[in-house]
């Protein structure tokens, strides 16, 4: 057998394997999506329904109509007819957006400044470098338990401010390491040239380095947004009434009152869309993000 034939055979094997892997990766997501457009009688059936017989948007209408408490015991088919779209039902989406965006900005601001100092001036002045890293490594429950205790005393529980502070603090170590890895890629001489040209230390950062690092900032921002958006435990323990994000709403559907698989799936689809888009956008940097900048792809 010559080289070419072996090459073709190898490729064939590779593609078969890859298609199989792709099916495994996509199927659960497909299942959620297809459930979200199924009618109630197809949500759970034996054998289960792989392709919705009649795709409908009722489940989406359901979650965007009046709030859930009024709908207990009803199925989307009838609910849609009675209850029109309501702004109140959009609250989880707005809450998720507000919390994720503002926490991301705060973490980005604080973390970037520290990352610059760490990259250029070493340890002096910057936070002790391993401390924030450890902070990131502990299971959130354990980090949050003392925070719950503290918030209860400070009356920060179930407030936007409290949760934004929590999110910012949990993600700022990642910003620190990620941005440091980006700063480290900019030669030190860029700052020094700016300083010799007459810039102050701040000027060297702001006019010299920052413009070169816009892409890194964007990547880090999107990555942190994904993490904040995905949080569940934080709001579970510190939110609830006043603050309700999408994952929390999702959990609400599962607890108790019969399984509303269709609306849950619709909520799930809405929850995963932003991270999927952002994730694909910054795919090249995901490794760097998850490994604290230690592995660069």
């Amino acid at each position, binding site marked *: 057998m010559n080289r070419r034939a072996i090459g073709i055979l190898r490729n064939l094997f590779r593609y078969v394997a890859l298609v199989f892997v792709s099916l495994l990766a996509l199927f659960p*997501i497909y299942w959620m999506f297809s459930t979200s457009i199924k009618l109630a009688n197809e949500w759970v059936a034996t054998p289960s329904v792989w392709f919705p017989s009649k795709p409908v948007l009722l489940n989406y209408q359901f979650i965007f109509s009046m709030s859930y408490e009024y709908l207990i015991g009803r199925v989307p088919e009838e609910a849609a007819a009675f209850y029109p779209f309501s702004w109140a039902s959009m609250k989880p989406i707005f809450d998720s957006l507000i919390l994720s965006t503002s926490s991301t900005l705060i973490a980005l601001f604080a973390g970037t400044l520290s990352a610059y100092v760490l990259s250029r001036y070493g340890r002096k002045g*910057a*936070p002790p470098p*391993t401390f924030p890293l450890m902070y990131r490594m502990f299971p959130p429950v354990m980090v949050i338990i003392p925070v719950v205790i503290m918030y209860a005393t400070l009356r920060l529980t179930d407030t936007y401010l409290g949760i934004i502070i929590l999110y910012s*603090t949990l993600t700022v170590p990642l910003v620190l390491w990620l941005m440091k890895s980006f700063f480290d890629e900019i030669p030190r001489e860029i700052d020094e040239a700016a300083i010799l040209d007459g810039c102050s*230390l701040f000027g060297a950062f702001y006019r010299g380095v920052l413009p070169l690092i816009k892409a890194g900032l964007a990547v880090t921002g999107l990555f942190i947004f994904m993490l904040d958006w995905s949080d569940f435990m934080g709001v579970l323990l510190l939110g609830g009434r006043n603050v309700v994000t999408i994952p929390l709403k999702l959990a609400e559907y599962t607890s108790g009152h019969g399984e509303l698989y269709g609306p849950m799936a619709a909520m799930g689809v809405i929850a995963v869309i932003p991270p999927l888009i952002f994730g694909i956008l910054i*795919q090249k940097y995901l490794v760097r993000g998850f490994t604290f900048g230690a592995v660069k792809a």
Partner: protein
Amino acid sequence: MDFNNPKTFSRLFGLPMNALLYFLGVFPIVLLIYVSFTDWYPIGQQYFWDSHFIGARNFIDFLRDPLFGMSVLRTVIVVVVAITLEFVFGLILALLFVDRFPGKAIFVSIAVLPMMSVPAVTGYIFRMLFLYAGPVNDVLSAIAGTRVSVGWLTTGWLALVSVILMDVWQWTPLMFLILLSGLLALPQDPINAAYILGASKWQTFRHVMLPMMKTVMLIAVVIRTMEAIKLFDGVFLMTHGGPGYSTQTVSLYLYEIGFKYVRFGYTAAMAITVLLVLALFTRYVAIRPLRPKV
């Protein structure tokens, strides 16, 4: 103040992050240590200063608590099995992607989709997949030829398997991506040198590529171990720790004691202990390959 003094400048720039970390880092930990020595029960005693100091009772109690021991054991099982599977699958997948071939970018994007999903949503998805009448049983039926009805979420050990499968589905992509970066970053010359010296593909992989990947593999495993220990969201939505206690991990157990039974003092003692163990693990094992060269 002279902002052109590097020391002043870096203090100033470090200020916002330090503020965040001290506010939610140092302060709560001190509080946690205090509370762990009290019997604080917020329903009866509104503020922690209303509670009574009871010494090390909480620590002695939870060490005797069989549920806690079991949750630790379960966490260890989940972590070890899931990480092993993820590592093996991730490495195989990475090897499939080393060469260049048409469509590579698309396949990579598809393969890494699971890790971008929101963990809570993943938990919910797998809850649907593993229903009695779910598609997993459908596939098994199709293979077996007769109707198979496995109670994935209602049988204790199968629920644990389901949890592991969920973690494997969501996080194999990360392992794959890290290992792939490692493989692609390998210098080509030593590999070619090995070929020319007479090594076969397998020998080159075994004697040249694997040793050079050591650091990256270590990083991948450490990172994933840390993340797997955190496991909470997915399990919470998928099984709620059930049936019974069969999928209750440390995180879930702490949650239950702390927030269902609101025994804050007791929870604080457990949290402190786990934190300490993890801190030692992080300090002496995990941080080494990760520590950026400052």
